[in-house]
């Protein structure tokens, strides 16, 4: 039920030779340092923008650190991502005003339309879905931000149309 897809995306750093070499360099430079796990994860996040499950598996093997620990660290700090960032960033406001005026329904709809969960990126790399704090447009709640555009009074049924202009 919980299974995270073990499928490896074609552009995952573990299968792209140059990226893999880069990863290895980071691992080698840091494996004997105290706190190596945190250090390596931070550097890989900076380098690639995310730490995928195949990467986590590889790091676990290399550093001999249990996968469950790596996953724990990645989910504890909000600066980490497990999927690459898409070309467009969809952020649903979950500030108080938006929350009470339908934010959660907007998220449900977005998850359904995009076929991903919050925090994930669509397979075609087009959108990354996330939530954010109050963006200061409470009067127009519920608010969704797509890249730098602030879109207010979002109705779930308009969402599919809204997304169309972001290629």
């Amino acid at each position, binding site marked *: 039920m*919980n299974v995270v897809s073990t499928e490896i995306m074609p552009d995952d750093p573990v299968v792209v030779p140059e990226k893999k070499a880069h990863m290895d360099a980071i691992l080698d430079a840091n494996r004997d340092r105290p706190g190596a796990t945190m250090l390596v994860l931070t550097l890989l996040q900076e380098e690639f923008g995310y730490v995928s499950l195949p990467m986590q598996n590889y790091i676990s093997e290399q550093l001999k650190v249990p996968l469950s620990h790596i*996953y724990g660290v990645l989910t504890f700090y909000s600066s980490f991502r497990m999927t690459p960032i898409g070309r467009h960033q969809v952020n649903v406001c979950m500030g108080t005003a938006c929350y009470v005026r339908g934010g959660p329904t907007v998220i449900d709809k977005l998850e359904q339309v995009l076929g991903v969960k919050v925090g994930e990126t669509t397979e075609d790399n087009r959108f990354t879905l996330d939530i954010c704090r109050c963006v200061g447009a409470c009067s127009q709640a519920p608010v969704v931000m797509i890249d730098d555009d602030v879109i207010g009074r979002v109705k779930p049924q308009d969402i599919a149309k809204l997304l169309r202009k972001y290629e």
Partner: protein
Amino acid sequence: MTQIRLTIDGETVEVPAGTTVLEAAEKAGVRIPTLCHHPDLTPTGACRMCMVEIEGMRGPTTACTLPATDGMVVKTKTEKVIDLRRFVLSMLLSDHPNDCMRCEADGNCELQDLVYEYDVEWPTHTGLRHNRPVDSDPSPVILADMNKCILCGRCVRVCSEIQGCDVWNFSERGFDTVIVAGAKQDMLAAGCESCGNCVAYCPTGALFDRVAKGWGRAAHQKKVRTTCTYCGVGCQFDFNVNTQTGKITRVTSTPEAPANGMALCVKGRYGWDFIHSDERLTTPLIRDDSMTEGQYPGFREATWDEALDLVAQKLVYHRDNNGPDSVGYLSSAKCTNEENYLMQKLARAVGKTNNVDHCARLCHASTVAGLATALGSGAMTNSIADCTGEAKLYFVTGSNTTEQHPVIGIKMRKAIREQGVKLIVADPRKIDLCNLATLHLQHRPGTDIALFNGIMREILVNGWEDKEYIAARTENFEAFKETIMKYTLELTEEITRVPADKIKEAARLLAENKPGAVFWAMGITQHTTGTMNVMSLANLQMLLGNLGVRGGGVNPLRGQNNVQGACDLGALSNVYPGYQKVVDPAMKEKFEAAWGVKGLPDKIGLTVVELMNAAHSGEVKALYILAEDPMTSDPDLNHVREALQNLDFLVVQDIFMTETAKYADVILPGACFAEKEGTFTSTERRIQRVRKAVDAPGISRPDWQVLCEVATRMGYPMHYNTPSDIMDEIAATTPIYSGVHFWRLDAGEPLQWPVRGDDHPGTPILHVGQFARGKGLFTANEHIEPREAPDDDYPFTMTTGRVLYHWHGGEQSRRSKNLMALYPEPLVEINPDDAARMGIAEGDKLQIASRRGEFVARAWVTDRVASGLIFGTMHFPAGNANWATGAFLDPIAKIPEYKVSAVRVQKIV
């Protein structure tokens, strides 16, 4: 260690420095409530239940993490801390389902108990609550409901610190913090070994045994302390029996278990459900070929009287007409000590033959023979606790410890991970322990002697041997040395294919890390050179001075739950109970007097494989087999089948219609370990009680009662009121058990033999100061090639063994729904290179054939085996590797060479 004094709630208590306030309070008799704390686990201070006030400290603090200091004044029951605890509990309840009414953990939940004790009201807030899936993991044995999780983190620590699997961890943070397996995977995908130890430590109903769901809660259960029926580690646990249904509901562990504490493996905790299997035999059966229908075609149901009379009459007939040695008796390493004693008494006193043996012949006969020669006693020399806890190095060879003796395996893993114990694995397969090994010597199967000799030569060449020890405690060193010196690095590498630098490294590690403990199992014993393999390991430990010391020793890990006891009690063709020789006239006289008979046989009887050969040739006409299954466990099964078919009379006493029972003339239904009283002796020579938890099904009876009936009907009245009476007779005739009595065991005395008298405490370590035989004997052992080498027709070498989830012939484990859900069918390990070359993919059906027979199993493509090697098991009848193994025997111990057979492998399309 310096002592400190502190005051807790007015009580003064003295404790060693380094003790926590919580531990000190316990010593002072003051109870501080806890949730995240457990004495077996590293304290984390996560739950804040154990808050106390310390005079002079600002604000309350957690007792479980605070070291006690001299002069400290602790208050555990101030209004302030009580309020705090109530607040903690109230916070936990605010995100906990109000489900005690139907929760499995009701009556057995630490949260429930504390909420009751502190009288915390159900919070009425309307804020956020999590609503997580109630059965969130598909594990067939564990039920996870994270709504009931209080984030104590015990499961995380158990799985890491005790089990060494690191399955669980915290993920997310703040209000959303949740326990997940691996990277939010299924538990099994995250490396779970299904030991259920996390369930055992979980304080609430968040983790529970899936099997026990709906079977009844604490209020209707009684607990019965007993000993596991699977392996020789000898774990103890409590059967929980529902007093309304009379059925076992689950196994719970107890910190009082001497060998294992709270830890169990998957078989012990979840493999017991065969007990209530509807395949259990419930009534005696007699062969009747006119019966073609029904549950057991070829058999009809019979009364006990009819079946027992027939058995007695047939055994007497063959004894009197074809001679006592025309009858054979196979005893059982699954049965109790008392039953093994009675079986050999029946064979010897009533049957007048020493043709009594059991499957130890197939697993550790060479250990017993080899160690008896070298040291004078054939058992594990040290205790599990000291050889895993105090050794600086483990030398593990021919033992896949984490799968075969799992609880010893986890103790090793813990010591390696936490104390930096060095590990050398010498094994042709890359077993799981290799992940933690300092060094893995992957030698060619059947080259153990050459490998050990090569290592010992390196030790000698460098002068690393313990010269003083050798001079004082051993003999025959020079002759040994002469042989060893032939095994140069070059020669050893050539024979074993282990690179020379690894051999050197092994010698150095052994010399630098003392004491070191040697462990082995069937990978050493099941060879035509088995006895010499064992003697070589004794040589190694004498050379290093590692015998008779804590943390050292030669430690053969015995397979079955009671294989040690079955040997101890004389279910062997050459010895009476206590290894007293049948050829010794004084012993004959002693047992004639004890048993009130004349003319006990004084010639050594036939062993397991010899009995089958004699049945095949017609010399043996009748066999009485007690709870053994040669049709799965013996080598060369086609030969065994012919032998059984050739018998005039076969009686099988067992709990299931086993493969062997299918050939029987009479089948007597026995009781399993949960249905009778008795004792088992574990691998560390520990004698432990087995207790009756439930009634045997139908009219089946405890085996000791059946044996008494048969003896009586054969004209030798045999009667005991209880197994305790049998043990008293054992104590009177068997010096190493002479102080063993049920009343001592029931009082909780931990007895490891030799127990020399009623006031003798037992012997945790053998050979301290002196060997049983006086001086330790160095022996010179030369490498001999295994009997079968791969050739053009049979190009693969096959080796055999077991897996974590099954047991031997699988008669029990295949009837456990839990174990079958985890491991449903036989697999054969094959190397990826071989598989690629032959176009074999994971899961393909393979036919494995030797000169003797063939079997079918699915491929597991893995580098656990080297190229040219395959690995098969004996757990499933059709996929049993023993159709292909050969009955080549070690000339001394008569153990067959299961570990090396030449086979060919074919993909079936």
